[in-house]
């Protein structure tokens, strides 16, 4: 009886290990890695909304100039701009909620909303 119970225990515990591993493997598979949305605002007004999951290119035409935004592999970045500073171009790609790329001369802001959380907040502890 004791041996039988040990065997059952091992069975139960392996099931409890295998199920989350399978879920993890399914989740890691590419395709649903990114889930955020890029909000592009010009002068505090929304210019465009684009999901991170679709690869696109957006050209932002402002009164002051042009910014070229690329969304690829769940990340967004500014590939080129005709502004004087080029800070937005040298900024690394953004993908997590709250991350921003700002082009001050053109008053363009890229921000990620409802994407992957950067950190765990106090509620989930």
């Amino acid at each position, binding site marked *: 009886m004791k041996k039988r119970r040990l065997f*059952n*225990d091992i069975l*139960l515990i392996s099931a*409890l290990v295998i199920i989350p*591993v399978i*879920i*993890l493997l399914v*989740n890691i598979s590419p395709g649903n890695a990114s*889930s955020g949305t890029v909000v592009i605002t010009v002068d505090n007004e929304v210019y465009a909304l684009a999901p991170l999951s679709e690869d696109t290119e957006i050209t932002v035409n402002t009164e002051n100039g042009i910014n070229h935004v690329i969304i690829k592999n769940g990340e967004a970045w500014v590939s080129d701009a005709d502004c004087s500073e080029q800070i937005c171009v040298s900024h690394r790609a953004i993908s997590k909620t709250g991350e921003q790329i700002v082009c001050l001369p053109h008053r363009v802001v890229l921000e990620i909303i409802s994407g992957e959380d950067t950190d765990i907040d106090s509620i*989930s502890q």
Partner: protein
Amino acid sequence: MAKKLAISGIFISMALVLSFFEGMIPVNFGVPGFKLGLANIVTLTALFVLGPLYAIAIQIGRVILAALMFGNMAGLLYSFAGGILSVFAMVALFEIRKPVFSIIGISAAGAVFHNIGQILTASAVVNDLRLAYYLPILMLSGVATGIFVGLVSKYLVKGLIRTKFIDTKNLYAIDRL
């Protein structure tokens, strides 16, 4: 009956001490939400020594008191859902007519269901099912801590039997360790 009630009270206070003690251990192994679940030692021991009804009562009392004493009201919701789901899962496995699982298997299942309950409640509160992506990692850590807690409880129950503090004639499941 009266003695069982008195022992239940002692068990709740022991569980509270363990909850408090656990809060002082700063480990989380890089997994937010990771807990050793030391208080579950008491629930498991109560399940085997006093029986399912007492285990459920002790769990409810422990969760509410721990939230009032060391936590906040937002935390109460999560730990309540986790604690209740956990104790009912353990009771269900315990109550299968033939003793199919030992205390270690029951403990592992209890830990995993605690995490499931917490994550599902958190997802419902935040209204965002993506929190559940985090569940597999917590389940794995729950299995590990659950086995540890089960082992501790096993020797605790054995020790309690030897002390004669607990009436072995009415012991709920002496042969099920």
